[in-house]
């Protein structure tokens, strides 16, 4: 994909604006959807993703060139990009969809992210997303993106270590009944679990 010379890491953190976890949701009378006139915030697992990207930079200092947050959402979604920037992301991308658009499906999100990644002139080495969104609880976007790109994937990650020189990530994952360690060649898609 990119020349093999060791280069600096570019981290992409997709984030989703979702109904805040503390809100008691209500289904609308027509049963076509949930009342969305409530408090929204960044999906908690995506927040963990942003934190992890920032922590990777703290550990690897100058080797992390950029942390870019991206969201696909209505105009209001810009709020969570601001949060991501406040948490330490360097820049952000807003793929704006019209207000009151129907909910996006993971395959569409994955395809959009793939396009964004293709257009990053400096490439993307690590994509960190939340393992699931707390609204639809689908938990598939990261895996789909990895499939579309043919990249390595490490889902339900609880610990990430990057060996910049070897261009590898050593990831500890939460699996049924315990944990698993995998070595992933960069570029890699990581989905976050609790830390």
């Amino acid at each position: 994909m990119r020349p093999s010379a060791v280069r600096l890491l570019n981290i992409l953190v997709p984030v989703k604006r979702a109904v805040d976890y503390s809100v008691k949701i209500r289904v609308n009378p027509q049963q076509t959807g949930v009342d969305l006139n409530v408090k929204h915030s960044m999906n908690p697992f995506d927040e963990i993703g942003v934190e992890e990207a920032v922590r990777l930079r703290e550990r690897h200092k100058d080797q992390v060139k950029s942390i870019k947050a991206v969201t696909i959402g209505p105009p209001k979604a810009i709020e969570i990009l601001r949060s991501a920037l406040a948490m330490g992301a360097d820049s952000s991308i807003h793929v704006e969809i019209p207000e009151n658009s129907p909910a996006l499906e993971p395959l569409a999100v994955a395809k959009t992210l793939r396009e964004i990644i293709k257009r990053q002139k400096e490439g993307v080495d690590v994509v960190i997303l939340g393992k699931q969104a707390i609204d639809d609880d689908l938990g598939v976007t990261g895996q789909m993106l990895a499939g579309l790109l043919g990249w390595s994937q490490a889902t339900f990650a609880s610990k990430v270590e990057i060996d910049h020189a070897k261009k590898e990530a050593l990831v500890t994952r939460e699996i049924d009944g315990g944990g698993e360690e995998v070595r992933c060649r960069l570029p890699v898609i990581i989905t976050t679990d609790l830390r």
Partner: protein
Amino acid sequence: MLRRSIFPTRALSRSYATTTHPHALVFLEHRQGVLDSGSLSALTAAEQLGGKVTGLVVGAPEHVQGVVEKARKLKGLTSILHSASSQYAEPLPETVSPLLEKLLSGSTPFTHIVSSTSSFAKSLLPRVAAKLDVPSVSDVTSVAHDASSNSTTFTRPIYAGNAIATVRAPSSIPLKFFTVRGTAFTAAQAQDSSQAEASSIEPVEVSDSPTEHIKSTFTKSDRPDLGVAGRVVSGGRALKNAETFASTLYPLADALGAAVGASRAAVDAGYADNSLQVGQTGKVVAPELYMAVGISGAIQHLAGMKDSKLIVAINKDPDAPIFQVADIGLQADLFEAVPELVEKLKA
């Protein structure tokens, strides 16, 4: 009930007769020669589609034959495909995906791909679905297929189970991937005679996988596995610290022959391992008996246990939300109540 349709992204060119009978491919997982009960629930769900069901078993050469022999006895399976390779001993989505892609490309007989919501299946199925340019539905609690319109309707929990979404995959989606909530479908039973025909398929070796499995560590326990235990004793943040969590709850769990679970608050605070977390983002359980000790009952926790047959709560706070779902509640200091309960159980 929330209605939502899944719209196809691109229609693959396939021609259908007026009615297409489904043919489901069920991913049957196994560990140490034993079939996972989650996969057996997935098999039940696949049967409910109303057509043929083929099981898929992949694994190391030394394990596959034994598992296939057991699988052949399962009620509901029409046939079994199996593939053995040393690469499948510690399977990874990157190494198993090519085999599934091969089985499902071109003029494949399969219409549905089904698995449990195990960590491996959840990691594998969406990767394959995206490569085949189709969506994937997660964690379904019911499934109904309409052969005349070749569409499948599912229900699944959203917003931590506070709403149920009904979604339909229409005929324009030629391959319907879905993962099945184990607690919503009884595990398929084995019968005395082997019914299903088994055939082996060539593994698709991946020469340069970008991912390598290094090791797996399983939390050793003599206790029943949380995901399938008939009884669960769970603790929350009131348990103070890891030592207190263990010393208070483990005797109770032992006396009941129960598995141990924890709320996210307890896990976050380090009282218990992540693998014990019960809730929206942890394990979903529905045991015969669920005891919530020192757990307030936040929505996200309830999402993981509210289908339990008998819910018992012990909490000092009479207003704790857990009492709304508990069948039996004890308002008491757990540090007094639990030891007393253990004594009475042992007597």
